[in-house]
């Protein structure tokens, strides 16, 4: 595969590229090369410098050092406009679409067709929008607004928008983080088509399986440096992980001896019309119960309704044998049922507050007498949690937003560990964090279960779900369609079950 691409020549060459932020060298003398018509995977832990390297390519900085060649030509990418003019297209994790306006206007923003110089040429606009949508295999009415379409459709529209400027190098930063497996498959088909047309695609991802599916070569970065570039045929997942973390990882998931006790969580016929229906399951003390399902299967909605953060239309929830009376999160918390939300930035962390205040935020009522809050416990609580979860922060009073993603996620988990849960629901507890942080989080989750707590784990990360869970219940289209015991769990079997294609479960 690589030899094929070699014939086409080099599309991009970066030589000795460095970028310094105040105090730190984020990218340190990196040589990077991508060939015409290849998908080049770019991997590394959070903070390894891969995003900064790509931002340099996108013209976000005017003060990088080193030289960049596109084709044979040396270029100075000092502004986004220059980068775009040299045929570099970027697709970021966060979509850049304006939600209230039409797909067509989003696609052609900045170069809408005009007639008589100033009037919008609607017909031409619609035609051109259709053509762009066709390139990503979307059959949508371009006059619909972005907020009317699904997340994955929006992601494809974003890709179509970038393709509209006819880039020769396309950078994708974690493009699958919001997509389900089925949608990822479609995205990969599109990538393969683009590749066939000779486009160079640089694909940033934390997911090993994606890299092995789609990339021709892969470059690993660590601490701002390039560790190595390999053809995908000559590496194994274990080798890549080792390159990323700089140490050998024998086993991703340690075998855990679970001691499973009495029923701690009992959910009966829980229903929210249009989201999930008649969901019943139980979880025991000391158990990690996985919930598998594609995006849109109703997993998150069910979890949020279960603990009173979203409405329910029927059913009941019991924690440690006691029925939740009021339907409110406060009531759930009184019973020790907590929920770690799926997006730490939106409704998980208090980003502008220090680590300390985040860690103690869920235990304020516990340290309040007659309305007066006693902060005496704070230092001890915080030190213990920072220690226990290896949170890397310059001090307990550092703003959480200054921490890396993996450490932020640990703070979020620490907040709930501090609150001493009976049942803890974890919704994507390690999304978008690096390998080391993920391992630390997994260890903490296992410790939690080991101490007799019940953990309900919602995760799109199949190795995580399979590795951690004692048992998995499977949701599909708002229904709980089955249950898999530890012995039956494998990535393949769970994947099939999530798609509703495994009959022998339960």
């Amino acid at each position, binding site marked *: 595969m690589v030899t094929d691409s070699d014939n086409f020549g080099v599309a991009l060459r970066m030589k000795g590229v460095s970028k310094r932020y105040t105090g730190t060298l984020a990218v340190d003398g990196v040589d990077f090369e991508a060939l015409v018509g290849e998908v080049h995977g770019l991997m590394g832990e959070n903070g390894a410098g891969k995003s900064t390297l790509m931002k340099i390519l996108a013209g976000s900085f*005017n003060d990088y050092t080193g030289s960049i060649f596109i084709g044979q030509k040396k270029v100075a990418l000092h502004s986004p406009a220059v980068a775009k003019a040299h045929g570099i297209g970027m697709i970021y994790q966060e979509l850049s679409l304006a939600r209230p306006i039409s797909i067509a206007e989003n696609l052609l923003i900045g170069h809408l067709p005009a007639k008589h110089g100033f009037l919008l040429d609607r017909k031409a606009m619609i035609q051109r929008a259709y053509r762009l949508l066709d390139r990503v295999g979307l059959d949508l009415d371009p006059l619909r607004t972005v907020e009317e379409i699904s997340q994955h459709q929006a992601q494809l529209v974003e890709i179509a928008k970038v393709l509209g400027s006819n880039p020769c190098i396309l950078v994708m930063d974690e493009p699958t983080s919001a997509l389900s497996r089925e949608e990822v498959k479609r995205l990969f088909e599109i990538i393969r088509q683009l590749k066939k047309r000779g486009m160079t695609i640089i694909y940033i991802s934390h997911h090993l399986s994606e890299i092995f599916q789609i990339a021709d070569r892969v470059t690993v970065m660590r601490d701002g440096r390039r560790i190595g570039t390999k053809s995908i045929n000559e590496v194994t997942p274990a080798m890549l992980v080792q390159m990323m973390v700089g140490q050998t990882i024998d086993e991703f998931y340690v075998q855990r001896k679970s001691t499973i006790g009495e029923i701690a969580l009992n959910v009966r016929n829980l229903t929210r019309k249009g989201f999930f229906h008649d969901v019943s399951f139980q979880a025991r003390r000391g158990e990690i119960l996985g919930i598998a399902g594609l995006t849109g299967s109703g997993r998150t909605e069910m979890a949020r309704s279960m603990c009173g953060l979203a409405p329910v239309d029927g059913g009941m929830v019991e924690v440690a044998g006691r029925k939740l009376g009021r339907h409110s999160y406060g009531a759930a918390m009184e019973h020790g049922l907590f929920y770690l939300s799926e997006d730490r930035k*939106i*409704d998980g962390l*208090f980003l502008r507050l220090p680590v300390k205040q985040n860690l103690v*935020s*869920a235990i304020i009522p516990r340290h309040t007498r007659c309305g*007066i*809050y006693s902060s005496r416990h704070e230092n001890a609580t915080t030190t213990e949690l920072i220690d226990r979860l290896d949170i890397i922060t310059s001090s307990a009073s550092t703003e959480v937003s200054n921490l890396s993603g993996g450490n932020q996620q640990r703070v979020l988990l620490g907040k709930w560990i501090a609150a001493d849960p009976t049942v803890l629901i974890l919704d994507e507890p390690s999304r978008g964090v690096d390998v080391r942080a993920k391992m630390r989080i997994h260890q903490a989750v296992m410790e939690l279960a080991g101490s007799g707590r019940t953990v309900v784990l919602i995760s799109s990360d199949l190795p995580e779900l399979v590795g951690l869970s004692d048992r998995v219940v499977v949701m599909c289209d708002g229904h709980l369609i089955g249950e898999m015991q530890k012995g039956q769990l494998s990535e393949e079997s769970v994947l099939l079950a999530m798609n509703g294609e495994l009959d022998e479960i339960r």
Partner: protein
Amino acid sequence: MENWMKSGDGTKSLSRLAVIYDLVGIYLIGLLLLVVGVFVSDDFFTMTNLMSILNAVALLGIVSAGMAFVTYSGNMADLSIPSIMAFSGIISVAALPLGLLPALVLGILAGMLIGAMNGFVVGRFNANPILWTLAVAFFMEGFMRFTWSNNQVYPDIEPGTSGAAFIDIFRMSIGPVPLIVVVMVIMFIAGHFVMMRTRFGIESKLVGSSRAAARTTGINVPRVVLMDFLAAAFGASIAGIFITSMNKLGVFYLGKGYDFKSVTAVVIGGMMLSGGRGNMLGVFGGVLVIGLLANIMTFTGINMFQQNIVTGAIFIAVVGLHQYRLRKRGKDYA
């Protein structure tokens, strides 16, 4: 490239200025104004003048101490403050035949009723606090003008009546210190304690930092917001009684201007409009600085309208600085 470096240095020194402002804050400016005042007039640094400054800002201080909770909890400002002030005053005057104490209690309750409504709607239904309280202010003005036929409400001030006692409230002193100044100081001390040491205060900070995160942390957000608006209404009601006592009459326009002036005090005192930042000490400093500034401007012969221009300009500058700093650090998630 050189140009760019220069602008880089410029932004650096500006953000260093901001850090200094955070540390010693508003009191440094206050000190500066004291020095300026001495140069402006010989009568400036006298006990009488300094006390008169305190007296002049006391109303604003009482309002700001309450308003601070609304800003702190991320709800920006309560623009119905002027109507709450007027309403509590009118109700107090109207209730004077029942006796002084019942009249005061009823006046404060009337004001807090409006606060409860604001807090309920903003907390429970996520109404935009600015628009909602603006609408309430508009409604209340109409309501008061209609109910009292666009007239002023006068207390009976025969000596010995509760009306006479009511008029005295503003004019009472404890030793050399006017009652209203004492009340302001008590409000700030109590407010500081509530903000820093009570569950309600801590939860207000969390709600102000991120309402969504507060919700998933199990905080009863509607109740916290309700209490924040009640705090603002409480301050405004007390101030309303004082201003009514001062004017010897109750009327719908009495609190005019206190909405904006109190937000200015709160914001230059270091509380960010996006919530969760700042403290009562700073707000008190903000109130003092506004008082000093007004006093100095009066000494130098700057009239009321020009003073408004200055206050407005300061507000714009401080909010601009806050925004600039957040953006500089890539954190303008307001």
